[in-house]
């Protein structure tokens, strides 16, 4: 783990644990999710031969894989050690999972062989019974003190009959004659390769066809039966097992519901794994749990949600990591609190990125430095980009775009200024609109941000009907991400090493498809709306200051308080009678926004009510899950944001109605739009300082246990939706009140 660099031992691996490798629980960061999971696993280790199914949900890189690694570390240190298998799902079906699962199991194939041998020993012991000649032999066989194969061979016992009995028992266990036959063959020399190849989904070899195994395991049900069989066999000698299926969102998809046959097989698989003594971790994005069929969900026990690391988690990670190297080499200096805050911001709390960047921070630090400070971050981020993407980034991107059938012009310039550089101009044909792909290395500092903003504005000015996609190769500050999203209408794409070609290819294709289907008039209209929105959000540029001027925060908070005061609901005494109604479209926008907020608070009520009314046998799990949810640090902040937004939108609506009720002065074409501008601008500024992204936190927290997580989108899409629904409310209202339809109404 340690890599001596610049005189320091580097406690952070150069590549974070993305493959479920065991993590030493002693030095693990105990986030609430890790604490809950380790407690459950510890209870399993101490208990009898009864398994458990745990669901772990969370956004990309929030530590699901890390959590699995910690449990694997515990499994390794258990006495006796517990075998653990980690299978990263790389396919959309369980059949696709089978290969990686079998490969993981085969790495420790002696456990499978020992399991089959144990079952065979039971068969022989049963056959010998308590006969005079079998005296004591049965108990020795059952205890694993006698090898059944040797015994049968030496004593000239009826091997064929025993093997047939074993096959019959395995068939009961697996409900699949072929799998039972194949596992029995593992007792005989010379069949290993054929059996493992077939179990991993391959075509049956001739020696298997001769034994009536004539087809590959090519359905989801087959795959689940095979996996269940292997688990049962491994656990047969009283062995416990930890099994993780990661990235299950690929398998449980809304657009590809499981068939009834698969659902049944999955239910049986989980039941057999639990009965055998396996601790099964099902891990994936929230969408995975949403798409799990009801009768399968019944088999899932506790659900744990992972959250991004908070600064204190990062600080703990740094401290424990430094401790691991303090005894054998020069430990790196501590990270300053500012660096930790900055790390949390740049990585969005994603543990994988935190480790990656921390490794390079240590490496970039001079030996005499007492504390790792912010100045080092840019160097480390630059090194990250260099090492992760190398010199072939542009080639990879261009190839991926071309493979998607796009016409790609690299290094295009929309005018003669340096800001007009477009890394890739992508279109579907020579004529028509396209998408400008702007590649940035890191967007960390104000200068980084300004550079990208200027490029975007230049492209918008020169090619107003085109689309823009910002691609960041390294790290993106969250404040910058929000503003860039507002400027371009879509969140910048942060390049994942090894996946950027695929991700970008798909994104570009989707953008071009939307351009293709859009009516030209509608496009111009949309651009006008966007321009209006951009205008309304111009104040959001203030956010850039936050990137480098933390001290402004206090002033801003005071500013926010003043704004909310100004927007306080008018006293009924001052305004007699009900204010005029706004146009229905505007009232609907305000109602929508308030409805979503009310619904969020309603979910909180439901969460508490459900938790208090739960059946006694589920109360323990419920309490544990409730505690875990409420312990998440953003929960109360999110609830506060909801209340503030409710007040803000109500006040905004009341002011709008007052403005709309004004008589149009004689000689003028319409109402005074300057007053409306000021009103909308004030609302937008107020919104800018509310952490809207935390609304999603509340949505996750109030999702019911392993169950009715309705329409939980990915974090990114939720953030964009919140930004559109609340952040851009003023822009949409203004467009409605002053746009073409408003003119017609006059």
């Amino acid at each position, binding site marked *: 783990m340690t890599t001596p660099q610049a005189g320091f031992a580097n406690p952070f691996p150069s590549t974070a644990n993305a493959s479920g490798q065991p993590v030493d629980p002693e030095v693990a960061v105990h986030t609430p999710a890790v604490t809950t999971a380790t407690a459950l696993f510890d209870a399993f280790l101490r208990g009898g031969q009864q398994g458990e199914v745990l669901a772990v949900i969370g956004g990309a890189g929030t530590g699901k894989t890390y959590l699995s690694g910690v449990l694997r570390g515990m499994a390794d240190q258990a006495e006796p050690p517990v075998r653990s298998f980690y299978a990263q799902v790389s396919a959309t079906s369980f059949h696709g999972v089978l290969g990686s699962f079998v490969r993981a199991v085969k790495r420790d194939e002696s456990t499978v062989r020992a399991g089959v041998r144990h079952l065979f020993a039971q068969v022989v012991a049963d*056959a010998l019974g308590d*006969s*005079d*000649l079998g005296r004591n032999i049965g108990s020795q066989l059952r205890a694993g003190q006698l090898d059944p194969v040797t015994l049968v061979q*030496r*004593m000239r016992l009826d091997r064929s009959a025993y093997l047939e009995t074993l096959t019959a028992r395995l068939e009961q266990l697996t409900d699949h004659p072929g799998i039972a036959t194949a596992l029995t063959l593992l007792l005989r020399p*010379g069949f290993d390769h054929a059996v493992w190849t077939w179990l991993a989904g391959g075509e049956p070899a001739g020696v298997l066809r*001769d034994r009536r195994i004539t087809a590959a395991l090519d359905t989801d049900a087959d795959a689940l039966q095979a996996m269940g069989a292997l688990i049962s066999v491994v656990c047969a000698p009283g062995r416990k097992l930890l099994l993780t299926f990661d990235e299950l969102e690929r398998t449980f998809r809304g657009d590809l519901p499981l068939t009834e046959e698969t659902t049944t097989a999955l239910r049986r698989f989980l039941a057999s794994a639990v009965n055998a003594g396996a601790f099964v971790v099902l891990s994936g994005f929230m969408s995975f749990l949403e798409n799990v069929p009801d009768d399968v969900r019944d088999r899932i026990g506790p659900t744990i949600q992972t959250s991004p690391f908070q600064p204190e988690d990062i600080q703990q990670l740094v401290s424990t990591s430094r401790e691991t190297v303090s005894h054998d080499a020069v430990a790196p200096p501590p990270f300053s609190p500012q660096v930790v805050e900055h790390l949390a911001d740049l990585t969005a709390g994603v543990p994988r990125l935190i480790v990656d960047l921390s490794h390079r921070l240590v490496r970039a630090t001079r030996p005499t430095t007492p504390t790792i400070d912010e100045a080092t971050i840019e160097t480390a981020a630059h090194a990250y980009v260099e090492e992760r993407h190398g010199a072939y980034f542009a080639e990879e991107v261009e190839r991926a775009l071309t493979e998607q059938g796009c016409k790609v012009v690299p290094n295009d310039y929309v005018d003669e200024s340096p800001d007009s550089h477009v890394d890739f101009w992508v279109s579907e044909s020579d004529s028509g609109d396209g998408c400008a792909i702007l590649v940035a290395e890191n967007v960390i500092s104000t200068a980084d941000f300004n550079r990208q903003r200027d490029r975007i504005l230049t492209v918008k000015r020169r090619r107003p009907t085109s689309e823009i996609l910002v691609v960041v190769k390294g790290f993106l500050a969250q404040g910058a991400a929000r503003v860039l999203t507002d400027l371009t209408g879509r969140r910048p794409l942060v390049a994942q090493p090894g996946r950027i070609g695929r991700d970008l290819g798909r994104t570009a294709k989707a953008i071009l498809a939307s351009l293709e289907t859009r009516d030209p008039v509608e496009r111009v209209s949309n651009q006008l709306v966007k321009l209006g929105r951009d205008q309304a959000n111009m104040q959001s540029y203030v956010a850039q200051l936050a990137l480098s001027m933390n001290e402004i925060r206090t002033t801003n908070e005071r500013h926010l308080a003043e704004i909310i005061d100004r927007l306080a609901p008018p006293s009924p005494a001052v305004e007699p009678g009900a204010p005029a109604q706004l146009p229905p479209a505007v009232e609907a926008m305000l109602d929508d926004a308030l409805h979503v907020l009310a619904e969020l608070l309603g979910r909180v009520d439901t969460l508490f009510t459900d938790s208090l009314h739960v059946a006694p046998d589920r109360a323990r799990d419920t309490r544990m899950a409730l505690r875990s949810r409420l312990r998440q640090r953003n929960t109360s902040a999110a609830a506060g944001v909801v209340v503030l937004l409710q007040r803000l939108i109500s006040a905004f609506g009341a002011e709008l109605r007052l403005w709309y009720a004004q008589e149009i002065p004689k000689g003028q074409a319409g109402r005074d739009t300057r007053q409306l501008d000021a009103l909308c601008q004030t609302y937008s500024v107020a919104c800018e300082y509310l952490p809207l992204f935390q609304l999603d936190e509340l949505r996750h927290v109030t999702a019911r246990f392993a169950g009715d997580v309705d329409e939980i989108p990915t974090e990114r899409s939720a953030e964009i939706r919140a930004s559109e629904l609340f952040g851009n409310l003023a822009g949409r209202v203004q467009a409605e009140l002053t746009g073409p339809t408003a003119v017609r109404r006059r």
Partner: protein
Amino acid sequence: MNPFLVPGCVNARTPLNPGVHGTHEDYADVDHTERQFVAFQEDFEKGDGVLRDGRLVVVSGPYGSGKTALVNRCVKWLDAKVRKGNRHPVVVDLRRDRLDRGEVTKRIKFIAGRLVDDLRTRGLLEIGGEVAQRIDEPDRMFPILSQVLGENTFLVILLPPSGDLVGELIEYARFARGKLLFFAETAYWGSLRERRGEFHTAGGAPPLFLELGPLAAGDGDTFWEFRLERFRAYGTWPHGDGPPRVAENKLKSLVSQRPMSIGELQLVLHALWELLRAEATQPEWISDEHFWRAYNMLYESGTGDR
């Protein structure tokens, strides 16, 4: 002498083979072996029909039930019988060719090649003849082989154990035809029973199934008495008049408690005899402890290893 070792045999697990060691008289009438032998004799007593149509004889039964010994006995009897009628049986014993791990098609091709090699060595086939050219196509080779053999010659082919490959036996049932007589053994008698019907639809002459089973309750005493009788005629007990006696019902109880094969019983009794012979003080009765020690000794020494 140890009566549980057939004269001429190296160890207690070598199957009886009349003509090589022992005679027809060495066969004890246990585990249905006599009835099955008679069934075989009756089938071949019918006249020339069997030799004209060919036959697959499948001997099935648990490990150690005497399948190989029964095949040896049948072949010896058949050889003597047909020679009297001026027929020339040619016995090709391929049972030592262990083919445990191969595919059926490859195993059959291998056997076809071995058979052709053997026949060429004996001068019964031309080198480079049509049969030799067809060893990769057993479907064509066996019919040609059936035709090129001399008028009074027929082949007795002793196949290696098929193990759990019942499908392989079905293939040989298809190949059986005039002048070709196959003998096969399988310990997977359960699977064989399940698929009996497939033999009859495979084509070729109808096979003959001979089934051996575990020992019946009285077989233990029958075997003990049968072998002791021979000992009394030819052997001497080093400690006096005769060996210690077995309590009444002891052997009956032993073979009734769980399915036991004649092979296993022979091993146990052979070890028991050696144990008693080495005892300084001779007991009057053989105790359970003696049996247990013999059984344990057998496991420890590994003499039962195949």
